[in-house]
Structures are given as C-alpha cells and as structure tokens.
C-alpha cells in the first residue's frame, strides 16, 4: 500500500467512536481518511454486525475476514474493550478526556446504560462534542425501534418512487440505502461543531436521526404533499417531459443502457445515430409532446437498434453524438469503471487476513488535501495496546495487568 505522506486535515484530532454497522463507520470515514485518529470501540463478546457478515475471505468465517466490514474501515483504529468489566468505564473516561469527539450510533439507551451520556462526558471533558446518530433520534415514540436499512427507507417513503404504474412499490436496490445519507449530514455538522469549538471553546451534543435526514432526499415531494395533497405517482422508467427516457436491453445477458432525450436536438442526434433520419421530422416524433404520445413505438424502435449492440457500444455512439446515454453497470463493472478508477473511488490495500483487498476510497476530491489510504481496516483490538500506552499513557505493567483481568476481551 502507499503510505500517506501528506499532512491530513484532521491530523491530531481524536475521536472515540462507538460506531457500528454501516452508518457510524461511513460517518467516521470522512475523518479517518483525512488524518483523524478514529478509535473504534469494539469487543469480541459482541462484535460489530459487519464483522460477522458475508462475504468472507475464501468463504471462511472469521472476525477479521469479513469483506463487508473490511471494505468500509480503512484508516481506522480498533480498541477492544469488554464493557462489562469493572475497569471499562474508567478506561473509556480516560479516553474521552483525551478526545475531541465521542460518536455513537446505537439505539438510544445503550450509552445511557453505560453512564456515557453527554452530561457525564462533559464532566470528564468540558468541551467534548458528542455526535449521536440513531435511527430515529434520541426521543419520540419510535426512538427505541431498531433501524435497519430497508425498513428505514420504507418508513421514509422512498419505495413510492420506484415501480411500474400498475405494479407495487419496490425497495431501492441497495437495500440499506439510507445508511449513506445521514453520514454526510452528520459529517458536515460535526466539522462545523469542531470549528465552533475551536473559536468559542464550547462543545455540544449533536442529535441526528437517520430517518429525518433521509427525508431531505425527497423534499420536493413532501412539499407537494403538504401544499397540493399529492402522492408521488410511480412512473416506471418514464419521465413526463423527456422521451425517450428509459433503460434499453442490449446484447448480452442482463445488459442494459440508459438513454434520456431532453431536447429536439438530442432527438435529431439520436435518429442520426440509429440511422433513421426520416424520424427527425416525422409528425409522430417531431415534438416532445408528439414523442410522448408515441412513446411505446419509439421505445420499440430504439430496442431494435440496441438489442444487437453491447451497452458500451450504445453509450459510446450516443455520447459521441451528444445524446445522454450510459451503461447500466453492475458491481463488477463499477469496480472496473475507468472514470471511478480515475477518481480513486477504490483503494486496493494489503490486509493481513484479506490479502490485497479493495477498501472503499473517497466520495469526492480535495485538490490540496486528498484523502489517503494509510492503513488497512483494523483487526479486532489491533490498536488496543497502542492506544493504552501511547494515547492514555499507561505503563506496560498497568496494561499487562488489565489484559490479565480480561478487560480487553
């Protein structure tokens, strides 16, 4: 792997992170990839659900072998701590006293049970910033409900926008879709809170609900509901003001290309590409409204052409003529996509259990302070000793005693 050599934006920042599953780690990724010391609090007694999720390296289950876990956790530290041990709370508090931020995404109640509420943390570190990022927020009738991806997406109404007009609503294909929504809102707010602390000396509690942030992705439809009493219609792949607009079958098994025509000029260009210039001025197709009336015929004409070509060919020829078109890529094709490679979306990093393994890289680029792959996803408890001796200043003797007492299991 290439070691990060440039300074990171968050170098020196320490985050004690009770993050688990997807939402917490994705939020922390923005900080870990830019130099923060993100210490994931874990335990073998109840490992992060991703650590015990498929796929595993060589199909062999193992706490450090999950591709799901290891895909998302580059650059993070892992600290193993048995929260049931009598010394645990004291160790957490020592860590908090050295931290800028404490983050968690459990169902409300877990941190309370441990006595790790914001009010308690503040006593240890007056300017601490605590980010709590549960499914539904810290209070309210649903607060205690477990929040799994597909369920949360349905609760936020997202499937209303997917499916045929005469069919049923369908889940988003990446079923924990909302898991990637709240991390952006949380990271933006957390950086703002850090800046505010740097300037005023004041920490704060941030309470963020995954459910609520998901609604920001469909806000116009909510306003339409509130103002006009309308529910979003399911449209299949059609668009009321663009024809053709759809996903067209191409040569090969389950291969498709999207095409969307938003103007008369694009329509003319499409006709030239498929060799049907007489359709440009055909009275059935010469205006958007006429094309809308003959949408089915148009779709058939396009399929006649696409079905004999690979989606790559369709995309290349349409794009060369200025017509919006793109291969409908599966995960294998995404991992090879030349544009995404150009932008380093994926980081191949050598991992002790996984071998050379694809870790997720950044979602955007910063010109002067790029995200950098420094270390692979951590093995469970890999950094316990480092954190105890280097950050908490424990003596070797103290550390060994605590190990003997089973505190770090």
């Amino acid at each position, binding site marked *: 792997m290439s070691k990060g050599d440039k300074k990171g934006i968050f170098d020196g920042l320490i985050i004690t992170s009770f993050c688990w599953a997807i939402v917490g780690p994705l939020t922390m990724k923005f900080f870990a990839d830019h130099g923060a010391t993100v210490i994931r609090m874990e335990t073998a007694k109840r490992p992060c659900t991703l650590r015990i999720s498929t796929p595993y390296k060589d199909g062999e289950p193992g706490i450090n072998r999950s*591709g799901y876990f290891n895909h998302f956790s580059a650059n993070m530290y892992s600290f193993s701590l048995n929260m049931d041990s009598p010394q645990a709370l004291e160790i957490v508090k020592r860590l908090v006293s050295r931290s800028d931020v404490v983050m968690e995404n459990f169902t409300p109640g877990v941190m309370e049970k441990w006595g790790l509420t914001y009010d308690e943390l503040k006593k240890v570190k007056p300017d601490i910033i605590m980010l709590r990022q549960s499914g539904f927020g810290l209070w309210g009738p649903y607060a205690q409900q477990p929040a799994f991806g597909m369920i949360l997406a349905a609760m936020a109404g997202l499937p209303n926008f997917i499916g045929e007009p005469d069919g049923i609503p369908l889940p988003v294909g990446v079923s924990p879709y909302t898991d990637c929504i709240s991390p952006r*809102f949380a990271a933006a707010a957390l950086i703002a809170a850090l800046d505010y602390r740097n300037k005023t000396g004041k920490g704060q509690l941030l309470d963020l609900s995954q459910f609520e942030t998901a609604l920001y992705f469909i806000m116009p439809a909510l306003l339409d509901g509130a103002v006009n009493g309308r529910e979003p219609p399911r449209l299949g792949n059609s668009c009321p003001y663009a024809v053709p607009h759809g996903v067209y079958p191409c040569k090969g098994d389950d291969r*498709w290309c999207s095409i969307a025509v938003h103007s008369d000029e694009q329509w003319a260009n499409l006709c030239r590409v498929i060799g049907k210039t007489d359709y440009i001025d055909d009275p059935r197709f010469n205006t958007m409204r006429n094309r809308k009336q003959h949408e089915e015929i148009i779709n058939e004409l396009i399929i006649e052409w696409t079905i004999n070509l690979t989606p790559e060919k369709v995309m290349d020829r349409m794009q060369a003529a200025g017509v919006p078109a793109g291969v409908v890529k599966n995960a294998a094709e995404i991992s090879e996509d030349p544009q995404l490679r150009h932008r380093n979306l994926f980081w191949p990093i050598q991992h002790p259990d996984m071998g050379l393994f694809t870790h997720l890289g950044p979602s955007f680029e910063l010109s002067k302070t790029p995200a950098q792959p420094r270390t692979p996803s951590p093995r469970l408890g890999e950094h316990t000793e480092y954190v105890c001796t280097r950050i908490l200043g424990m003596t070797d003797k103290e550390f060994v005693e605590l190990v003997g007492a089973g505190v770090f299991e």
Partner: protein
Amino acid sequence: MISGCRALDLTDDNGFLCGKILADLGADVIKIERPGGDPSRRIGPFWADVPHPEKSLYWFAYNSNKRGITLNIEAADGREILKELVKTADFVIESFPPGFMDKLGIGYPALSRIRKDIILTSITPFGQSGPYHNYQTSDIVTMGMTGILYQTGESDRPPEHMSIPQACMHAGADGAVGTMMAYYHREMTGEGQHVDVSMQQSTAWFLANAVPLWELNGVVLKRSGSFRWSLSSSQRQVWQCRDGYVFFNIVGGRTGAKTLYELVNWMDGKGMADDYLKSMDWDNFDMWRADQQMVDRISKPIEKFFQALDKSEIAREAAARQISICPLSTMEDLLNDPQLKARSFWTEIEHPELNTKITYPREFVKSSENACETRFRAPLIGEHNEEIYGEIGLDKQDLVTLKQAGVI
C-alpha cells in the same frame, strides 16, 4: 455554527443541496441566478400546480435559508461584480460543465488570485477530469453508472429508476462535507482549495456489500425487487396490508430473532399464528439456508396477518414492540408521522407573496448549542439585489444601468 461564513451559490439543481446544508449550519448563502431566474425554477412540482418560476416547490425545498441575486457572469461587467463578491466570500459553489468557469476567466486559479484562501466547490455529473467528464447525462443515465439502478427493480424485469433525482442529492450533500473539510483546513492553515465532486462517484460510493461480494465470491448482486434472494430460497420483503404495503424481511439470529418472536406473539394474540410458527427456533433460524418449502410455510400465515391490518396499527405495534417491521409511508403519513411530530420536525414558513405558509423540514440536526433551523423561504428572482450589491458599493443608479445592460 458557521454564521461568520459566506457562500456564493452558483449551482443549478445538481448542486442545490450543498448550499442548503451550509445555510442550515448558519452560513450566509447567496444564490446567484442569471437575469430572469435560474432555469431550474421550472422544475416541478409547483405551488397550487401553477407552473411559474416563483412557485416551484423544487426550488423552494432546496433554496430556503438562502438570499438571492441575479447576475450574468457571461457579461464582462457581471464577472467584475462576481470578483468583487468573491472578496467577501469564503466559499463559491458551482455546478457548470467542467471548464466553463475557466473559459470565463473565473475558474479556481483566477478566483484564488482574487482571494487567496477561497474555497471553490464544483459539483458535476462525473467530475472535472477523466474519460467521462464531458459526457451528457440525466439522472437515469448517471444512476445507471453507479451500480444502484442495475440492482433496483423486479428480478425478471428491466432495472427500475427512482423517479425523484438522487445522484444530485448524494453529490450535493458530499459538496457540503467537502466544503466544510476545506474550510476546517483553511481555518488551520490559511490555505484554500478546489473541492471536486462527481455525482457518479458520490452515488457509487455506497453499494453496501456488492463490491466485496464480487471481489471475494465472484457473485454479481442482481435485482430482487419485492422478493429477497438467499442462497437457497426467495423470500417476500414487500407485503400487502389492508390499506397499503408493509416492508419486512424474515431474518433470524442476532439481527432478526427478536422481531420474529414478537411478530408471532402479536399474531398469536389475534389467533393467527399456527403451530409451525410458534414452534420455530428463531435464534438459530438462518434465512440464508432455509429451503423454499420452509420459507413458504413461514410466509403464508404472515401474509394473511398483514392483509387484515391497517398501516397505522402496524406502525404503532411495531414501535411499541420495538421490532423491525414498517408500513410504507405515503407523503401524507410522513406529514402526520407521530415520531416526526414528537421531534417538531415540521415547521411552517411564511410566503407572504403567496399569502400562505408552507410546511418544511425544520432542521437535519438538533444541536445543544446552535439553531440549525429553516428560518426563511427561498429568494424571489433578484430579491436581494439592492441589499447585497449595496454592500459592495453599487448604488440604485448603478443597478438601473446594470439591469438595462442585462447584467443583473
């Protein structure tokens, strides 16, 4: 939290959300539109279904908390005014095609000469460079190139596009994160930079376990629609209830056993759980290995049970029993949702020129220290011209001249 910051927001709908998040965090965000109004004002839906540039609910939704001016940056006078404004700004956000600002002489190098520590955030479909950077696109095309579209839809049908644009949301939100990171760095070092956001990259960033599944198992995740595929069977995940749909996965073990035990109890209370369901050991039930016959025996009585219930009862019981089952919310359900009400999620914002109030989300985060609320509605066309241009020393007569010259 960042009330001392100013952003110039030159984006269209591809980048709206970025400025919205910064504005909610307290920044003074100035939306800059071309004279006559931004073309994205014609995106529906519209207030009272009146298609008018000052009645677009799409525009309202993502431009609240922003002030607005008009400026033609393609005119030389317009560019000079923009440069004056850049001197007062921390961030410039834009979503023009790659190279457009450079061609006008207001790209990152030029802006950073005017203000050394300026942060420029660019949001485009594929990014500023690379093999696709000049591709023509539309949400259905971009989403196709992220991996999400391929996996969405019924297994025996074409991929299904989500009909409300999504790639711009991922990118807009990422734009806010990138801008804040660059800001944090600037506050530490005094150095500005260029934030380059790609809608394709932002959206492809999260495909759950699809990429490792391909890498480690050579398995390409397919569409599964209303059913979910395991190694050995297909299981319903979208269920019908009396007045809508219910989303629920049959999952045993650590993540799902509690939900299944509680569901069976709930069914039993209504005399609808059969002996087979009641005898199940959900702790050790592995849906990845259950055969189709078993899945069907489990599903049948559950299907019947949901069909007899209303959405509201399902939502209430699921919350009370703390289990992972939920009805699909309609927009109306969300506007009346008890959880959102309890957290005062909705707020009413005045629209005096429409003589009405409109319901908006109040805030995306509750901070113990700062208000992050939606405070005022999106700007009318050129609403703050006088106010903002006044700040940089343009008087009323200047504005009259510039208006007639088509600059503002």
